[in-house]
């Protein structure tokens, strides 16, 4: 479980995060959504320790990222896996070396054991046989899958994903979303996803936080979001006419089902 307590962050005079409080549960996909400039990426970077907040705390299962010493912080970070927006794979290394890198750095496994582990995670993300390929030789969706494989190779307790669907076609996005959801339940980890893709929200959003102008505007599940009465949230999720129509159709359908149930 990750707890964000009264988090504040400013750059100069500009307040980016203003008293943010969140609780992200283990074994669930926790989604942070919001329009551009709402502070969700800064929030993510504060949680993982890339930015130091002005005040407030981020607590990982009882351990505060800000209060712990350097060595403890390193240990804590080794329990974090992260999928970056651009995948952040090391250009000069093959897919296998990219995934093996955390194992080389932090474990004393033999070469055979490392190879086995790499093949296991590659199979988990459906990328068998891509060991010798360079990042420049694989597609955007494959890069994301390799990024996930690298993130989970050390069996982390926390998985962070920054815009996992950006630049991907809807079909590949769905594959990545389902992979994130399955890994979350399979490894029983706390997953935090920053996105503004509504398909992801509906597909994997066990717990959703809607950020608006640096504060948490709304939280709930993907089942609740569609019925939310929050105007700002509705403006965000039903920004397109198509989605508004879809919402109306869905609500009509639900009303009809209720009537049918009452009649029955």
């Amino acid at each position: 479980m990750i707890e964000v307590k009264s988090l504040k962050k400013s750059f100069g005079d500009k307040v980016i995060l203003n008293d943010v409080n969140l609780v992200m549960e283990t074994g669930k996909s926790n989604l942070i959504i919001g329009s551009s400039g709402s502070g969700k990426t800064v929030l993510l970077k504060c949680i993982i320790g890339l930015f130091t907040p002005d005040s407030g705390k981020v607590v990982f299962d009882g351990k505060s990222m800000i209060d712990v010493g350097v060595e403890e912080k390193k240990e804590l970070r080794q329990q974090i896996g992260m999928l970056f927006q651009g995948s952040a794979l090391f250009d000069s290394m093959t897919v296998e070396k990219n995934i093996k890198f955390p194992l080389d750095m932090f474990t004393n496994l033999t070469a055979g054991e490392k190879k086995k582990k790499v093949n296991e995670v590659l199979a988990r993300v459906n990328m068998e046989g891509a060991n010798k390929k360079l990042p420049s030789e694989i597609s955007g969706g494959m890069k994301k899958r390799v990024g996930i494989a690298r993130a989970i190779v050390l069996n982390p307790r926390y998985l962070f994903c920054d815009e996992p669907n950006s630049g991907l076609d809807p079909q590949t996005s769905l594959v990545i979303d389902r992979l994130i959801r399955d890994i979350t339940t399979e490894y029983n980890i706390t997953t935090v996803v920053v996105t503004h893709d509504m398909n992801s929200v509906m597909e994997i959003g066990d717990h959703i936080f809607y950020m608006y102008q640096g504060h948490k505007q709304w939280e709930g599940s993907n089942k609740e979001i569609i019925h939310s009465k929050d105007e700002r949230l509705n403006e965000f999720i039903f920004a397109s006419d198509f989605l508004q129509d879809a919402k109306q159709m869905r609500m009509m359908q639900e009303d009809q089902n209720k009537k049918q149930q009452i009649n029955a």
Partner: protein
Amino acid sequence: MKFFTKFGQYLLMLKGMFSRPENPKMYWKEFMHQCVEIGIGSLPIVVIISLFLGAVTTVQTAYQLVSPLVPASTIGQIVRDSMILELSPTVVSIVLAGVVGSKIASELGNMRISEQIDALEIMGINTKTYLVLPKIMGALLMIPCLITLSAFLGIWGGRTAADMSNIVASDIFDIGLRSNFSPKNVWFALTKAYTFAFIVSSIPAYFGYFVSGGSLEIGRSSTTSVVVSCILILVADYALAALLL
């Protein structure tokens, strides 16, 4: 004010490099990789430049030494001292600021922009120790070697040019090479080599590590790092000459 902020940031980067490595074996591997990149990667250009520097120095010295009172062997002496004292350390370092410096700045800049540095940080790796320190250590080991080699090649190039252009015979050139040799000059050249190696590696590492923006900024920081390195090499060259000679 901006200068002091940047200078402070540079000093903090250098201070931040000294932390306990997570896995010394991986750091050693990276150090070796940098030695190959900096040393072997720059070898062809250093060889070519040094040979021609020596050759040109010979021809131009001969052109200026028109007095029959000055013995021809003096050309060898001048070429030797020019190569050891100035041309090899300074010119080769300026060339390396372009070759090695721009590579370091663009490599780190690209890693910063594409979030590879963030990825390493999140894994719990001190990126200053893992990425910057091996580059500086590699440069400190390899650049003095390259400069020493350059001095030898420059003198050999000058000797060959003298012989081929019938300026002075090799045996007379050799007399000049052996006369009035001061070992102090070699120590001075090596002091310069270590100083310049530090500049050539640490300045571009700073500009690359702290780049922000997009691909345009990577190019800009790479260019700025080369310009700043060249200026600092020349300033340090003068300061060392004034202090040590």
